């Protein structure tokens, strides 16, 4: 059913209820009218919170949220590193069906292990996260996960349901202080965590986009296994607080990879090392205890990988 049809059906129901109320007995009518008034008020509120946020407003809100991210963690201005991260991100973003989005990528100066995506295509990864990765496929998987959040408008949907949005009647109303509130609400979602469902959806899209671009789909689960082996360390405090525990994520990711038969693909550890190593802070170290088993699922034997090229991009 389309939104318009649904609205018509809802309006017909409300009119029917109003019609009935008009014919009710006076004593009952008072209560019925009150109830009807409450129903109408509730319906109006629901209708208002259903206001879609346009693509332009999505980008505008996203810029504000991205500015908040950049205010919390400075952006690294290392042209070679940013170019490399952008190229990996663009490789996977090409698989994501949002032609209205221009993706941009930045590296954040912090040892914290994390990644963020603001609406409108502003994607960030921290030096700390780069520091624990071992291949381009891992980076691709993490960026693809973030792109999944953008494509599914997870932050925007969170903002749309916020109480203050009930006052917004059209796109023009989403400006000034209301826009600032939207940016604030979106920033809170970004820093305090998405819902479990949104994270699971971004994980699914992450492995699909990365594999579709030609990367080894196990990149994202491999990164999650690195988190697992570093549990309890300071730089991982926030990512552990805002994401599902690694073991559960690993199991879910591996199920997706097996279900979709995502075999093959490149890992490109040499190209990753050449472009990232020496440009990142010392990585959080794995625990002294034995690490969890590797995240690779029991996939069928893979065909031989083509020899990865290690030439520096942009040269």
């Amino acid at each position, binding site marked *: 059913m389309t939104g318009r049809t649904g609205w018509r059906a809802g309006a017909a129901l409300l009119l029917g209820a109003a019609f009935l109320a008009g014919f009710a007995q006076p004593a009952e009518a008072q209560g019925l009218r009150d109830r009807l008034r409450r129903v109408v008020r509730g319906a109006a509120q629901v209708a208002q919170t259903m206001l879609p946020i346009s693509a332009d407003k999505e980008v505008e809100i996203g810029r504000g949220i991205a500015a908040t991210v950049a205010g919390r963690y400075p952006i690294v201005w290392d042209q070679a590193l940013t170019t490399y991260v952008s190229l990996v991100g663009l490789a996977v973003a090409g698989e994501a069906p*949002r032609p209205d989005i221009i993706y*941009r990528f930045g590296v954040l100066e912090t040892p914290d292990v994390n990644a963020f995506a603001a609406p409108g295509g502003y994607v960030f990864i921290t030096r700390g996260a780069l520091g624990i990765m071992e291949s381009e496929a891992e980076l691709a998987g993490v960026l693809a996960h973030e792109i999944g959040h953008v494509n599914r408008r997870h932050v925007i949907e969170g903002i749309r349901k916020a109480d203050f949005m009930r006052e917004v009647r059209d796109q023009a109303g989403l400006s000034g202080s209301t826009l600032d509130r939207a940016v604030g609400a979106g920033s809170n979602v970004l820093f305090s965590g998405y819902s479990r469902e949104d994270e699971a959806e971004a994980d699914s899209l992450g492995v699909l986009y990365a594999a579709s671009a*030609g990367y080894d789909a196990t990149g994202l689960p491999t990164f999650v296994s690195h988190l697992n082996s570093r549990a309890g360390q300071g730089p991982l405090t926030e990512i552990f607080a805002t994401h599902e525990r690694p073991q559960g994520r690993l199991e879910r990711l591996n199920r997706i990879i097996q279900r979709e038969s995502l075999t093959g693909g490149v890992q490109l550890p040499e190209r990753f090392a050449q472009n990232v190593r020496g440009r990142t802070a010392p990585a959080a170290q794995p625990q002294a205890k034995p690490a969890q088993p590797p995240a690779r699922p029991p996939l069928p034997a893979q065909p031989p990988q083509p020899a990865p090229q290690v030439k520096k991009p942009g040269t």
Partner: protein
Amino acid sequence: MSARTRLSGAALAALVVLAAVVPAARAQKTQWSDAVYVPGRWQGGRLVPARTANQATDTLALVMRVDYFAKPPRWRAEIRRTADGQNFADPQVVLGNGADVQVVTALGATPLARHALGGDSLVRAALVVDANGRPQGAANGRIVDRAADGSVQRVVFRRTQRSAAFDDAMLDPRNSSAGRNFLSSRIAAVGDQRSTAVVATAGARGVDRVQTPRGEVPVTPDSLAILRMERFVVGALTLEEFLRQGRLGPYATRPEARR
């Protein structure tokens, strides 16, 4: 439940399914990209051609990218040539409707045969399409064109998008915007392409407090950093080379398709 009721229910269900499927089939859009290489190398901004029967990518030079958008019988091709191996020129738009092929310029539409593009052998080869507006050859992978003597004339790396999303108006030469808004600009490069609608935004916000797992923290938004991020350019050619070296996207190992 009687047999008649069940039958009616089934018929209704079939109608609902048809109603959902028929419009989707009628509105089927496709979108794909070709990276076109010729034998040779770019050296100092000049193309040094080579004659070879070897189709390996290290003997080839990228000369053109074509992005296609089709909704049969209409189609649109955005052609980007490079003259120096470093940058792509602005796209040139060609529209087809199953009968005519026209080049869209700032002044209007010109039949391809009467436009300079029509005399470009690479462009002509790129615009050989079937009745559905699809170019010849496989949907994905490498396509090799050879001369009669076996030498490689051009190699195309093709990638079809899993889902196409573009405005029908972009396929119509009568629409004044058909040639002015380039669809491929959003997928071919990044950076310095902000739409005017995006420019004005929250720039003068003060200190915010954001919720984090470590509690509320004060943050001063840095809009200038985002402006700088938006101006950071990664060229389409750089991306193409990156994909090719990593054997990603259209360069992922796939069975070769020959014409």
